[in-house]
């Protein structure tokens, strides 16, 4: 049994420690508004360079799914989402808290997160191995088409302008080409700067775009927090709460898992979709937003389940569907691990170790979240004016530790400013990050395909699988722009927003 092999890897003292550290830090960054899981992962990435890859990935993954748990605490108690995936939980979670049911809201979100997260791991465990076997037949053209399709889906899912999202994907692909050309050995856009020879590192870019820019924006716009002051008790839901929540939890698991697989959807869209579905299915849709437990249970389950789903394209096809997964891919590549369909064969320890660690991590989170609510509330009371210098300090130390030079720090600050401008001008950062990570593989697949076909682009349409993916990408680009077919936009989601 492969999963038992996974448990044999995870259930060592060292890996249990990294798993616990990951979920604890994840919950902490989830609780704190202004520092998201992706920034926290990139911050801690340099510290993981000296530990075995499996331990590093266990910890970084723990931060990612741990943040989903922590995010709900802030949404329910402060009405400010700790991270983007918990935005929708504010609607009913905060209202429940105002009605004296903060404990139940926190309890059901932790339990739902646990159930959703666990069911998604079971599905990941079942789906990933056969998918990896299918992916083995992928050649260069199929890979290129798959990546094109993935990026187009990502821009299609973007909640702002699709043109802007496409532009960011293109900029990401360009940033990924900076450095020495792998085929000819020519330096490209390095401007004679030594650190650019190996390409622009993904970590300072992510730290800048997600960490620094967020802090700068928060300083300008201000972060006001009115922490819930009543005593929080009765964390366990009663029978009626259970009856109301079990359906949303099961549906949220399914919605989250499948949306997690799609590039760009991720936990945010999963949460919104689950909320929209619950509202539609409810006999009292007008009561949503007034403290309905279904509005907390469904989205919180879905955003956790989406993490399990997101691991499927990452671990089997090397396609990261979210920025967090892009960072994990970058980490795996920097450890020299070849990610893709062969990962299961060549690095079974990483695949099964991570899967097993997620079972344990989810259980740890359930135990960690409910008794430690008091601690999280205390942390929430730390004023942002004292918090942001520390966030900036950790970002600087993290960037410096990458290669022990200040160039990476300066690069991070520059991307912080770029990220700030992007947020101001409504350009999404996720397509840029994902395209940047995929760019080297994409370029290699494109150039090898053209060499194979003697310069004919027909190769992408003459092979069935590649053709399906390319046609899907083209349709997704064209259809939303046809005036008579307003396919684009998650109308339901936009209404909720």
């Amino acid at each position, binding site marked *: 049994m492969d999963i038992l092999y996974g448990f044999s890897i995870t259930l060592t003292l060292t890996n249990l420690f990294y798993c616990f550290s990951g979920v604890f830090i994840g919950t902490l960054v989830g609780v704190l508004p202004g520092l998201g899981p992706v920034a926290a992962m990139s911050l801690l990435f340099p510290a993981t360079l000296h530990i075995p890859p499996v331990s590093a990935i266990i910890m970084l993954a723990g931060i990612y799914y741990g943040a989903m748990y922590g995010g709900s605490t802030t949404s329910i108690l402060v009405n400010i989402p700790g991270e983007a995936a918990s935005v929708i939980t504010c609607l009913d979670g905060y209202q429940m808290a105002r009605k004296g049911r903060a404990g139940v809201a926190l309890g059901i979100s932790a339990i739902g997160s646990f159930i959703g997260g666990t069911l998604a791991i079971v599905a990941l465990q079942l789906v990933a191995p056969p998918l990896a076997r299918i992916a083995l037949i992928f050649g260069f053209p199929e890979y290129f088409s798959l990546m094109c399709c993935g990026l187009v889906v990502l821009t299609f899912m973007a909640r702002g*302008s699709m043109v802007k999202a496409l532009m960011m994907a293109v900029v990401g692909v360009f940033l990924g080409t900076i450095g020495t050309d792998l085929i000819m050995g020519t330096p490209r856009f390095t401007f004679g700067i030594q650190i650019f020879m190996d390409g622009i590192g993904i970590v300072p870019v992510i730290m800048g775009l997600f960490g620094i820019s967020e802090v700068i924006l928060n300083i300008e716009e201000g972060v006001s927090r009115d922490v819930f002051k009543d005593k929080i008790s009765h964390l366990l839901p009663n029978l009626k709460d259970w009856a109301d929540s079990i359906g949303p939890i099961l549906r949220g698991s399914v919605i989250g898992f499948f949306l997690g697989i799609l590039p760009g959807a991720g936990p945010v869209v999963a949460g919104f979709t689950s909320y929209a579905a619950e509202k539609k299915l409810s006999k009292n849709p007008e009561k949503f937003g007034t403290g309905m437990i279904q509005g907390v249970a469904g989205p919180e389950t879905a955003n956790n389940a989406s993490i399990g789903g997101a691991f499927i394209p990452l671990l089997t096809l090397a396609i990261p569907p979210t920025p967090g997964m892009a960072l994990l891919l970058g980490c795996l590549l920097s450890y020299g691990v070849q990610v893709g369909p062969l990962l299961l064969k060549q690095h079974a320890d990483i695949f099964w170790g991570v899967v097993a660690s997620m079972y344990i991590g989810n259980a740890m989170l359930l135990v960690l979240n409910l008794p430690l609510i008091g601690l999280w509330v205390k942390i929430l009371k730390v004023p942002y004016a004292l918090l942001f210098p520390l966030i900036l300090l950790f970002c600087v130390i993290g960037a*410096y530790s990458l290669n022990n030079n200040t160039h990476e720090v300066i690069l991070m600050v520059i991307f912080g400013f770029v990220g700030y401008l992007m947020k101001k001008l409504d350009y999404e950062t996720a397509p840029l990050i994902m395209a940047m990570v995929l760019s080297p593989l994409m370029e290699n697949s494109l150039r090898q395909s053209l060499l194979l076909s003697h310069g004919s682009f027909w190769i992408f349409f003459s092979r069935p699988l590649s053709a399906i993916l390319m046609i899907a990408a083209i349709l997704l680009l064209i259809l939303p722009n046809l005036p008579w077919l307003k396919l684009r936009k998650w109308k339901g989601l936009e209404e909720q927003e």
Partner: protein
Amino acid sequence: MDKERWGSLAWLGIGIVIVIGSYKLSVGTFRNPGPGFLPFITGAILAILSFSLLLLSGKPEEAPKMGKPFFTNKTKAWKAGLTLIALLTYSVGMEYLGFLVSTTIFLVFLLGVVEPQRWYIVVFGSLSASVVSYTIFEILLKSPLPKGIFEF
């Protein structure tokens, strides 16, 4: 000119620069793509998309979006600018002044000027954060931090 158009123009300029730079690198042919092949394509697509965005931003239905001001809180915008400048100065200066000195100055500036706190929070907060982070990273985790002219 509004922020949307400024943004589109900036991306258009970047796209054109990428196209020129890629062309100089050698784009190659479809049969034998050169090192500038993919950057050339990305630059061209970026230029086309930003140009179309520039045209779109002139449409009347886009007017409400264009009306949104760049700074949501002008009185606090200078704080954001100061923080960014301080961060950049700190990044450059830490190599010369060393981690402990530069970090303390940086934190004193943030806590004393950007978001003013009581004097003892500024002094003790900055010093303790610098020393604790130095101890954790340099001494415990053996992750070298810049020494600078003071050798610490």
